[in-house]
């Protein structure tokens, strides 16, 4: 298996990162060598995410599953308990399962599980929680933009030079 290098290049702004990403993409298309490319930034930048190559976000599927599960659980909770208490609960001619009243509980449960599943979906999609990699700089949380790369040994020097050419402030490596 070919040796790989993990690098984090820090840049002063998004424009410089964009230029570097485009050039790395072109290089990778021609001859490969860049195994993985990710950006870390203090704020979200949807346009640059597109340039890197947006991976699909699946959070909404979790949300939908949670909401549907909540709706069903809400119904089962109210209807199930009403049924189980049927022998002791005097209904006085009213419906055993009062749908209009139960709709309120179902609505709240839909939201409750929908919210929880959305958070789970985010954690799943963002691969969190996780231990921080050694390739991290607190300046990314401040004002610098980072480019995380995994490159093959054969392309290591070229990629490094390319990063410096694009005004990288610092290039950190994971030994």
């Amino acid at each position: 298996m070919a040796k790989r290098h993990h690098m984090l290049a820090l840049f002063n702004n998004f424009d410089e990162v964009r230029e570097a990403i485009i050039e790395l993409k072109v290089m990778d298309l021609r001859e490969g060598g860049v195994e993985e490319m990710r950006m870390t930034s203090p704020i979200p930048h949807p346009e640059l995410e597109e340039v890197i190559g947006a991976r699909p976000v699946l959070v909404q599927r979790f949300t939908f599953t949670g909401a549907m599960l909540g709706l069903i659980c809400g119904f089962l909770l109210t209807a199930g308990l009403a049924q189980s208490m049927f022998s002791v609960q005097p209904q006085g001619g009213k419906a055993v399962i009062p749908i209009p009243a139960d709709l309120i509980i179902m609505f709240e449960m839909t939201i409750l599980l929908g919210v929880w599943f959305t958070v789970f979906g985010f954690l799943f999609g963002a691969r969190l929680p996780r231990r921080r990699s050694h390739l991290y700089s607190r300046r990314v949380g401040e004002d610098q933009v980072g480019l995380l790369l995994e490159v093959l040994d054969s392309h290591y020097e070229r990629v490094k030079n390319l990063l410096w050419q694009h005004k990288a402030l610092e290039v950190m490596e994971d030994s």
Partner: protein
Amino acid sequence: MEEEIRNDIKWAQINRDVLHSMASPRRSYWALIGLCLTVVAIGVYAEIHQYHTGMGEARLNRPQMWGFYIANFIFWVGVSHAGTLLSAALFLTNTEWRRPVYRSAEAMTSVALLTAAIFPVIHLGRVWDFYWVLPYPNERGLWPNFRSPLLWDMVAIFTYLNSSMLFLYYGMIPDLAISRDNASGWRRRLYGWMALGWVGTDRQWRNFRKGYLLLACFLLPLAVSVHSIVASDFAMSIMPGWHVTSLPPYFVAGALYSGCAAIITLFIILRYTFRYEEYLTLPILDKLCKLTFAIAMIWVYLNLIEFSSAWYGHDMFEKEVLIEKATGPYAAIWWTMIILGIGLPFSLLIKWVRRNMRVLIFISMLINITMWLERWMIVSPTLARNHEPYSWGYHWPGWVELSITFASFAWFTMLFLLFVKIFPSISMYEVKEMLYHRRHVSDRLLRESGSDRPLTVEK
């Protein structure tokens, strides 16, 4: 007049300013915490006294079984309303000025809900039997009645508390990572644990954005439903003055009104305590005041609707309660509430008032006192003049109820003070994002106009 947040403020400076507010507190901060603790302790003593001697000590007796406790409950649920609702609504409408304010508003929501949740328990009297309301099969011959608004209430408040706290925490994750990187000791461990290893990769941001949008979509209808359900506690009964179709929207409007006023109060306190003049700017306060005025007008309108339907509805019991409010023993309180509730928001139309902090904090606190009185005037006059004349009776609070009420304000203040000292009270990444987009737009405009001026690339 002070301008919007400066475009040239450095991003690192934003971090420093917000993190500085979480550093060692001043002596005045501890003095305030101490004062709050003392008042809370008096409230706890009053509550213990109530356990031993019974609910009569709180002057709760037929027909006045709800009194201050339920008035407090509605008030605090109402205060909680504005934070999350405004945060979610302004996020969905892409309102830029929301960014520096929403964190403290959301914190206010969670803290107010934690305060509100105490009151139904205190109101029960036998607090140790609280678990009886939980819906699970049991052998006590008790079962949850899903037709009861009281059970809807419990489910709604539980959902709202859960969702609001998750929404608050979720939005804080990137800032917790910044705090982690700049802290030491127990703070570093706490933030490190709470930040979940966030490093701000494109994958994390993409999922974060989508999740935040979905949460906001849930929170908006949830917040409206919660106060509608609280209103249903009243509206589903056949009591005169409560059995009104417009009560749920009236509650929602009243909640937003008091919540907005509370946000103004906290805005001013935070601005001065933490020297946030750079971020919590006067134009934002100006917009908050205008929003409060608009919401207050909805509340005024719904009040008029309620009065006119009671007056022209020809329900004699309904009319009797209205006349009783205006002329009976509660008249002074009711008229104070009406005059201040309707009159105070008009002062927000005056530019000078919107820019004068001292006047504004006074007005916002007065609005909240007014809205508290409004809650009391919803509860007690109806119970005083119900359908059965043999059980008519008025409620005036004793020291137990008063102590617990003041303790709730101290509890709320204490929790909020603790929050803003432990967690970032201004969203650092959102302020940066706002400035970035603003610069982006101004740079593009400059480029299009062919100006020679160098493009702004400050960070």
